[in-house]
């Protein structure tokens, strides 16, 4: 019996499986971070999103795609009550965050926003603050004073945002002196520092160059083992790379929500297929 003599080449080292998280079909029984029921939001009389019902599973990446004006950013901002800042808005329906309705009359938006953080499209580190101050501002203004705690949290957040090595040499330089991609990672570190449970990201990489974008995407994949991430993106390929589940919005309504592989290989709704194949925009 002749032994097979083909051996694996050592040309490329295989990545250690423990570090990466291969996206799988998420188990249907995975706990939901958000249960949204018939959520609508009105600017004056006009409905920006209408009757949206969706369960967002925890500790995964959910992408929201759709053409311009379809309500994806609006929906995202509903999840941490950012619409409270806009006058003349009205919300109907409910959004349960681990069981409690964030739109209940007695719920405090400030506390909600500590648990549900947000990263914006245009990176916005506070201009009067250094890198360290930026990261710690959320903690300091919420009463955390102890030096030891602050220092530890500073390093931890910057490491998790894959920025520590690049800034550890001078943590007191102005936040605005970093490059675009670094600024966005600084904003992510700032959001992580208050230890939220959810990270909402509104087109976080759309203002970045391709390599910086890839670094942010890699960061998102690493973070999703600890955080529930909901990301709005107008770049469908990004949704494919980064997310486990994808929701397609059109004209304020949720059209389809499924595992990313299924949405991009065989969507159920014709509108979804037309959009992702570029038959309309």
């Amino acid at each position, binding site marked *: 019996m002749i032994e097979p003599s083909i051996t694996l080449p050592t040309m490329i080292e295989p990545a250690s499986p423990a570090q990466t998280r291969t996206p799988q079909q998420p188990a249907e029984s995975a706990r939901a971070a958000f249960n949204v029921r018939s959520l609508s939001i009105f600017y004056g009389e006009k409905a920006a999103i209408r009757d949206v019902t969706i369960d967002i599973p925890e500790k995964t990446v959910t992408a929201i795609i759709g053409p311009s004006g379809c309500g994806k950013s609006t929906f995202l901002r509903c999840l*941490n009550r950012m619409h409270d*800042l806009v006058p003349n808005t009205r919300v109907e329906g409910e959004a349960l965050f681990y069981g409690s309705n964030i739109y209940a009359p007695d719920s405090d938006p400030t506390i909600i926003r500590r648990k549900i953080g947000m990263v914006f499209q245009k990176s916005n580190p506070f201009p009067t603050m250094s890198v360290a101050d930026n990261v710690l501002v959320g903690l300091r203004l919420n009463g955390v004073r102890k030096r030891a705690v602050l220092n530890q949290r500073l390093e931890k957040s910057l490491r998790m945002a894959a920025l520590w090595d690049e800034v550890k040499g001078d943590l007191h330089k102005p936040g605005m002196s970093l490059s675009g991609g670094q600024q966005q990672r600084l904003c992510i570190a700032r959001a992580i520092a208050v230890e939220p449970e959810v990270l909402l990201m509104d087109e976080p990489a759309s203002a970045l160059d391709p390599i910086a974008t890839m670094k942010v995407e890699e960061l998102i994949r690493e973070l999703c083992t600890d955080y529930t991430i909901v990301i709005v993106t107008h770049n469908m390929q990004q949704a494919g790379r980064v997310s486990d589940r994808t929701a397609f919005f059109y004209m304020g309504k949720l059209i389809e929500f499924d595992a990313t592989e299924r949405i991009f290989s065989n969507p159920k709704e014709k509108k979804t297929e037309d959009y992702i194949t570029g038959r309309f925009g």
Partner: protein
Amino acid sequence: MKAHRHTRRKIISALASTLATVAALLVIAPLGLVFYHLLVSGIGSINWDFFTHLPKPVGEVGGGMVNAIVGSGELLALAALIGVPVGVLGGVYLAEYGDVRMNALLRFVADVLNGVPSIIWGVVVYGLIVLRFKSFSALAGGLALGLMMIPLIMRTTEEVLLLVPNGYREASLALGISRWKTIVHVVMKTASQGIITGILLAFARVAGETAPLLFTAFGNRFWNHNLLEPIAALPLQIFTYAISPYEDWHRQAWAGALVLVVMIFLINTVVRFLTRGRTVRVL
């Protein structure tokens, strides 16, 4: 044919730039004349005495305006106590809170008040305070100036705060930082230079006001040690001396005017220095 038109264009262009230059000179000329005249007339009287001595009794030669200079400082300080907090907080309200209609009304009122002749402020404070307490006082003068400062500071603060991009407010709120902390620690901190600039400009504006002080602070030939009594102020002193028949007092009035103009000039220079290199222009 073409060359002809070209030459015509060149002539018209040269004519236009000449006219523009002349116009600019016409604007600068009065300013230059004022400075020159003040300098020439007043510089001779600027001496150590001027800054250290009290005015001499009527008719005597010599003396200084030290009490007026210090008095002006005191009045500005009192005005600031009233004008700055109310003005800044009012600006914060306009920029961050309030509803659209109320704010439009407030802005309109502030703009009107900014245009009100300054003597009216003096008359109002006269009626409210001076008559009530039956005496002119430093407090009344400070109040008059302070009330003048309020709409000014309010509007500049509001404008500067509105220039802070909304992204910073959103980022701060998204971190779970409360609204008022966001305003104080993020928005106002970002706009701090602009706010200070606005305050300094208000100072510069009221430092030279004479009319409101006429029947509130009233002026004083001596030191004032009680805020409830009349106090000397530089513009007042200049006025009193200038309309007097005494040659010596006229001389001192020029000196006082020079000092006043230099003071205002210095404040504006400081403002320019603080806002150097910024693309955002305040006021």
